[in-house]
C-alpha cells in the first residue's frame, strides 16, 4: 500500500490556479523527485501536503490517514487529532533552513523530540549528537546557526527533521539557497538517507541528483503533472516537448 497518496489536489490563490489536478502515489522506502520550472507549483504542492497551505479540493493520504473527510463537499479537513498525527509523520526541510537562531545546533534538534514527543532528554541528546556526527558536524553541537555555513545549517535542519522520526521526509529545494560548492555536502546526506530506504519527496533543480537518487520523477509545469515515471523514462525516453525544452535549458 502507498504511504503517500495525493488525489486530485487543487489549489488557487485568488484567480491564479497554482495546482490544477495533481494525483500521484509513493511507496514506502521510495524517493520521489519533483522537477519543473519556477512557478510550476512544486513548492505549493509540497506545502499543501505538509499542511502549511490548505488545499481547495482533493485529498492527501499519509500512512493510511486521510487529511480530508472523505466525500466532503465543500472540502472539510479531518479532525485536529488526525491532522496532528499526519503532521508528526511528516518532516520538512526548508529551502532557507529556518533553524531557530537563538538555539544551538543541538537544541534545535532536541527541542521537539523532548517537548512534543516527551522523549527522554539524555537519550534524545545522544541521538542528536549521533546524527550530527554522522552528518560531519562533530564538535558543532554548541554552535549557533549564525556560526555555521549554509551547508552546515542545512545539515542541522535535516537532522532536526529526522530526530522526529518522520515516516516521510519532504525537501523544498534544499540546496537552492546554497553556494554551488556547498550543495554537494547536503546532497550526499540525502543520498545516504535514500540508501537507508528513507521515504522522501524532493523538490529540486539539481537534475543530475534527481535522476540519480530517485525511484520516481515527476515533471510539473503550470500546475499540472506533465510527465511522471522512472528517472530513465523522464530523462531519456519521454518525447514530451515541454519536458524536452525544460531539460534542454538545464543541459544548456
Amino acid at each position, binding site marked *: 500500500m502507498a504511504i503517500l497518496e495525493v488525489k486530485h489536489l487543487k489549489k488557487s490563490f485568488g484567480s491564479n490556479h497554482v495546482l490544477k489536478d495533481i494525483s500521484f502515489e509513493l511507496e514506502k522506502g521510495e524517493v520521489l523527485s519533483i522537477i519543473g520550472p519556477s512557478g510550476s507549483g512544486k513548492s505549493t504542492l509540497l506545502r499543501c501536503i*505538509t499542511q502549511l497551505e490548505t488545499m481547495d479540493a482533493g485529498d492527501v493520504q499519509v500512512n493510511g490517514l486521510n487529511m480530508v473527510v472523505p466525500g466532503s463537499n465543500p472540502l472539510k479537513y479531518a479532525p485536529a487529532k488526525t491532522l496532528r498525527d499526519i503532521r508528526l509523520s511528516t*518532516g520538512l526541510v*526548508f529551502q532557507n533552513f*529556518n533553524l*531557530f537562531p*537563538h538555539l544551538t545546533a543541538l537544541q534545535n534538534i532536541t527541542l*521537539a523530540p523532548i*517537548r512534543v514527543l516527551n522523549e527522554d532528554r539524555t537519550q534524545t541528546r545522544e541521538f542528536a549528537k549521533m546524527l550530527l556526527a554522522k552528518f560531519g558536524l562533530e564538535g558543532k553541537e554548541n554552535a549557533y546557526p549564525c556560526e555555521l555555513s549554509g551547508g552546515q545549517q542545512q545539515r542541522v535542519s535535516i537532522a*532536526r527533521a529526522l530526530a*522526529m522520526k518522520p515516516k516521510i521526509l519532504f525537501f523544498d529545494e534544499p540546496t537552492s539557497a546554497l553556494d554551488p560548492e556547498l550543495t554537494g555536502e547536503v546532497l550526499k546526506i540525502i543520498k545516504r538517507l535514500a540508501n537507508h530506504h528513507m521515504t522522501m519527496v524532493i523538490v529540486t533543480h539539481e537534475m543530475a541528483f534527481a535522476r540519480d537518487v530517485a525511484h520516481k520523477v515527476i515533471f510539473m509545469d503550470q500546475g499540472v503533472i506533465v510527465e511522471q515515471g522512472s528517472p530513465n523514462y523522464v530523462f531519456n525516453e519521454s518525447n514530451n516537448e515541454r519536458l524536452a525544452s525544460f531539460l534542454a535549458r538545464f543541459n544548456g
Partner: protein
Amino acid sequence: MADLTSLLPILGEGFLTTLAIFGLTLLFSIPLGLIIALGKMSKFKFISLPVSFYISVMRGTPLLLQIVAIYFGSAYLGWNFDRFPAVVVAFSINYAAYFAEIFRGGIQAIPRGQYEAAAMLGLTKRQTFYRIILPQVAKHIVPASANEVITLIKDTSLAQVIAVTELFSLAKKQQAAYASIYPLFVAGIFYYVANLLLSCLFAYVEKKLNYYK
C-alpha cells in the same frame, strides 16, 4: 548657597518616590503592553479596533493630561484614587501603549519561516510563542525598550502636576526656599546618574543577547 547635607536627604526622599513610580510603572506596563500588542494583532476586528483606538489616544494626548484625567476623573466616578496610585495607573496605561507598539514591531519582525518550522515539528501555538518567538523578540526590542525606560525616569517628574512629591517637585520647592537654582541642578544629577546606570545595564543586556544573530 544651599547646603548639600540638608538638601540631599530631602531630594533623596523625592528620588525614592521617583523610583517607586518608575518601578511600578515598568512592573505593570510591560505585561500589559504584551497583552495590548497581541490584541492589536488579533484577527478579530472587535478586539483589534478598540485596542488600536486605545493606543492612538494614549500616544496622541499628553501624559500630563492623562495623569490629571485619571486623578480627577476617578474622583468624579467615585473611585477616589489617591495621588500616588493615580500616577502609577496613568503611567502604566500610557507606557503600556508605547511598549505594545515596540513588542508588536518585534513580534512581526520574526520571519514566517520560524512559525512554519515550529509547526512542522509539532510544537503547539503556545510552545511556539514562548520557546521560539518570544526569546527572539526580546533581543529585537532591547534598544527601543531602553529608550522608553530612560524616558520614563525623566517623565516621572510629571507626577508633580497632582502634587506627588517626587524628586523634581521637591527640588523646585528647595529652589524657592534657597532662592537658588542649585537644588534643581542636583536633581538633574540624580536623573542623569540613574539613567547612566540604566544605559550600562541595557548595554550589558544587549551584549549578553549578542550570542546569536
